[in-house]
């Protein structure tokens, strides 16, 4: 028990325990679904087989590609606009005061409520998906950026003013790096939102993509294919989040004094 509690405090120990937990869950799923005759809950090996088979076919790859393309385009747009607008709002008090109430109202509307509107505007296809993902991921990035820009350290602000660092130099060398930790937090929140909006919009407003495959498979009673789509989504979400946390660590190396190699 003592070794167990100590191992929790090390990164390696946490990784081992986490992996053990995940393997146990997987094992439980495997055992419980073994030899399942229930069409709604197919056996795990069947799902994994289908995952491996279907998502390597041209059709599977095309759907996967379509999802990834719209997700990355949507996130990029949301991040670019979120950071740009956030920087303006966070630094110009009168802009903030003028649009804050309208902003609070707009962000309270779930992006999914705009699916019918987006479909009307862009039709069934990629643009609808991109619009919705961008809109959903815009808010956390924008609000975090604006808040970060408002809270730049006063000493840093004074030292920029005293040395008359202004304009582009001020934004590029002082404001953006100072706000970067908050921007990254915003993006961290935006990624799962983007995934949700991607799947949702594909289920109702698209002809391809992971969400489309899942609904289509359900409608045609290919439940193993449906489950394989869910597995792929899980793997995708996990991988993106994991890759993102690595990127975050690299970008924020300066702020971690324990990293002497930075």
């Amino acid at each position: 028990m003592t070794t167990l509690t100590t191992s929790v405090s090390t990164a390696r120990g946490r990784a081992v325990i986490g992996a053990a937990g995940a393997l146990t869950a997987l094992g439980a799923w495997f055992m419980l679904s073994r030899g399942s005759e229930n069409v709604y809950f197919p056996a795990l090996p069947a799902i994994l087989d289908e995952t491996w088979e279907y998502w390597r076919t041209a059709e599977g790859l095309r759907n996967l590609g379509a999802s990834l393309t719209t997700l990355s385009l949507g996130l990029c747009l949301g991040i670019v606009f979120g950071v740009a607008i956030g920087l303006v709002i966070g630094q110009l008090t009168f802009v903030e005061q003028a649009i804050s109430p309208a902003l609070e109202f707009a962000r309270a509307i779930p992006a999914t409520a705009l699916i019918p509107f987006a479909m009307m505007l862009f039709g069934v296809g990629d643009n609808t998906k991109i619009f919705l993902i961008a809109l959903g991921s815009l808010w956390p990035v924008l609000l975090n950026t604006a808040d970060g820009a408002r809270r730049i350290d006063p000493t840093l602000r004074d030292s920029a003013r005293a040395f008359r660092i202004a304009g582009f130099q001020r934004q590029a060398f002082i404001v953006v790096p100072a706000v970067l930790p908050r921007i990254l937090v915003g993006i961290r929140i935006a990624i799962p939102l983007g995934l949700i909006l991607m799947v949702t919009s594909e289920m109702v407003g698209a002809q391809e993509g992971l969400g489309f495959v899942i609904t289509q498979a359900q409608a045609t009673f290919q439940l193993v294919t449906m489950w394989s789509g869910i597995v792929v989504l899980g793997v995708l979400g996990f991988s993106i989040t994991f890759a993102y946390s690595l990127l975050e660590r690299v970008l924020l190396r300066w702020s971690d004094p324990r990293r002497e190699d930075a």
Partner: protein
Amino acid sequence: MLIVTELEKTYPTKKGGFTAVRDMSFTVQEGELFSIVGPSGAGKTTLLRCIAGLDRPTSGGVYFQGREVDGPPEDFAIVFQDYARSLLPWATVGTNVELPLMKKGNTAAERNRRVTTALAEVGLSDAVDKKPFQLSGGMQQRVAIARAIAYRPKVLIMDEPFASVDAQTRADLEDLVLRVKEETGTTILFVTHDVDESVYLSNRVAMVTRSPSRIAEVVDIDLPFPRDQIATKSLPEFARLRAHVFGGIRDMVHDTTLAHA
């Protein structure tokens, strides 16, 4: 050269206003090191922010070469007490020093030359590619001084710059300031609460009272240059001046009315 006339700064509070500085007047001559020394809570930082153009005085004014200071002037550089937060933690030492020089008229080669010279001056040539957090506190303050030197200001404002470094580093940095003054002829306005430091460094020392602070006395420091940590501080005159300034400050702490005499 730098004239402060009847400067007053009042901050709004819930109970009316709080006057940090009242009726402050003095003139700093070109090329001199002018110290402002006083007990903590004497509104020294407030005064300095007004002089640097970071805050506007409530009344009175600051004039530099005949022009009123209404924002940070081009010719001023500041070394803050809090070096850890006045340097950019994400930028290298070199970039920190170079950033204020990135204006029209400075070519990359010229900037590079000034950064190299300034870092050599403070003994940090090897640290150009390091990040601030990889350096000790004293070294970070050296970077802040190098940034100010490279900027080539006419007036260098230092706000208790050595308050958070150890004694040995402090002595080294004091001598660095004296060397900069001698080599560049920069006018230096130095704020401190350390009496020894003010006497050792200055041409003149202004003693300020507690808030609302005003100048109690300006003392001429007629100690010979170049100054030396051991030789200068062994002079009877140093001891006399130190005792005089120290006594003045102590009286202010015990009896604020004396300051108005």
